[in-house]
């Protein structure tokens, strides 16, 4: 009995220590950003790498999601004689919910995993410690550019995803459902107001913050050689998914309460 209690105690303490460490790490990142210690060239390099890596898959999934939404929407709405509202359904679903969340998932799986694996591999090969021995702060040199790039790339990817999703919906609506193209575009532009657009975008910034923090933290503190890199990278992606999903519930509630 005592052993079980001791194990539970250790586990709980471990969680709190891990959380404290993660918060301290975040404060270190933010401290560097506030002091303006941002290596612009490194950030641009990271923006290019993270953005390019996710671009094709975001384009494909967004276009397909928009198309599927339009297909399903067309079938459902036609039952009520309201198939002209397909554009509304596609645009609002994508802008308010689907694009921010799905793009964040894709971004976690591609760019987030890349960040965790890169930093993890540097950690197990002593490159992070070597940075310290060279008199350079590894958080400033290796983490801040990746974190800042996340913050800048994900919102752009979300906007790109929204456009591609709407295009997917347009193609299905025009070529399959026989809705006039100009009507679809007009309806889309009319239905999206700034609240819809920015409520999705605000969430995206929050998701970018979470993904950057989680993936950089898991990568930076990777231990255990190549096995460890795999383990911590998987953890980074899994935690990113979980926190994006959970925070989305909370953020949606807050946004709806404040801004509806």
């Amino acid at each position, binding site marked *: 009995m005592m052993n079980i209690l001791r194990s539970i105690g250790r586990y709980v303490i471990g969680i709190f220590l891990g959380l404290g460490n993660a918060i301290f790490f975040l404060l270190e990142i933010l401290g560097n950003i506030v002091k303006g210690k941002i290596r612009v060239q490194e950030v641009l390099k990271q923006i290019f790498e993270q953005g390019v890596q996710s671009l094709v898959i975001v384009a494909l999934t967004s276009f397909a999601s928009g198309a599927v939404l339009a297909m399903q929407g067309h079938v459902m709405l036609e039952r009520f004689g309201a198939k002209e509202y397909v554009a509304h359904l596609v645009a609002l679903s994508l802008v308010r919910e689907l694009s921010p969340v799905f793009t964040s998932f894709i971004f976690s799986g591609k760019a987030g995993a890349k960040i965790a694996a*890169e930093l993890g*591999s*540097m950690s197990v*090969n*002593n*490159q992070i*410690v*070597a940075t*310290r*021995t*060279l*008199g*350079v*702060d590894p958080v400033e040199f290796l983490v801040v550019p990746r974190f800042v790039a996340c913050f800048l790339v994900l919102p752009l990817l979300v906007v790109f995803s929204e456009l591609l999703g709407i295009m997917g919906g347009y193609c299905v609506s025009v070529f399959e459902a026989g809705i006039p193209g100009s009507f679809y575009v007009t309806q889309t532009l009319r239905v999206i107001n700034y609240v819809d657009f920015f409520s999705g975008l605000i969430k995206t910034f929050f998701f970018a913050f979470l993904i950057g923090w989680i993936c950089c933290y898991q990568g930076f503190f990777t231990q255990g050689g190549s096995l460890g890199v795999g383990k911590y990278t998987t953890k980074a992606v899994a935690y990113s998914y979980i926190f994006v999903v959970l925070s989305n519930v909370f953020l949606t509630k807050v946004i709806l309460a404040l801004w509806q």
Partner: protein
Amino acid sequence: MIEIIHLFKKLEDQMVLTDVNLKIALGEILVVLGGSGAGKSVLLQHLIGLMKPDRGSIMIDSKDITRLKERELLQMRKNIGFLFQEGALYDFMNVFENIAFPLQEHTTMNESGIRAKVKEALKIVGLEGADEKFPSELSGGMKKRAALARAIILDSKILFCDEPTSGLDPILSKDITDLIQNISRQLKCTTIITSHDMKNALRIADRVAIVFKGAILATGTQKDILSSQNAYVREFLN
């Protein structure tokens, strides 16, 4: 001068450093010898401030580095070269960029100055022409040479080398230890090398310290060590 005074460190209920006392004179080459898990690398990590001791102090140029904050340690490390066991070169930089990195970070040298300095360092370590190669394209010995060039590029007066011959064949081990000795003499560096390579250690060291279970068993010149009557030292020598 470097002075280690009554250094103690416990890791996971195990003493890894037990009352370590050492003095290393200016320009001296000290080799810390010992088997795996003896505490050599932990000692070196304390010397560069990557670990804090439970007790004791480390004086480098009359400053107790165990009391320095991370920012002050980063400043201090600019004056110390550190050679890692596996080199720890950045994968995403080529050899030139790796060696130029400390110069770009800590000096105001222009690009041509940096290029000339890196070329000179590459010549010293015998890696001319390898500047465009990435670490993944280098052999174990070449990686260590490139890492050594990076460690000395700021003309540091202190050089720490962690197991520089591990993973190398006997000929390469001799080459690397000779290179470290030459560089230390040339730059008048105070050098501390951890190793379990007795043969090369005795060849290049001004003084040797034998570590066993975190404690210094014996220190002295090659002659002192060879004539030691300590059972572990005798076993290690044989």
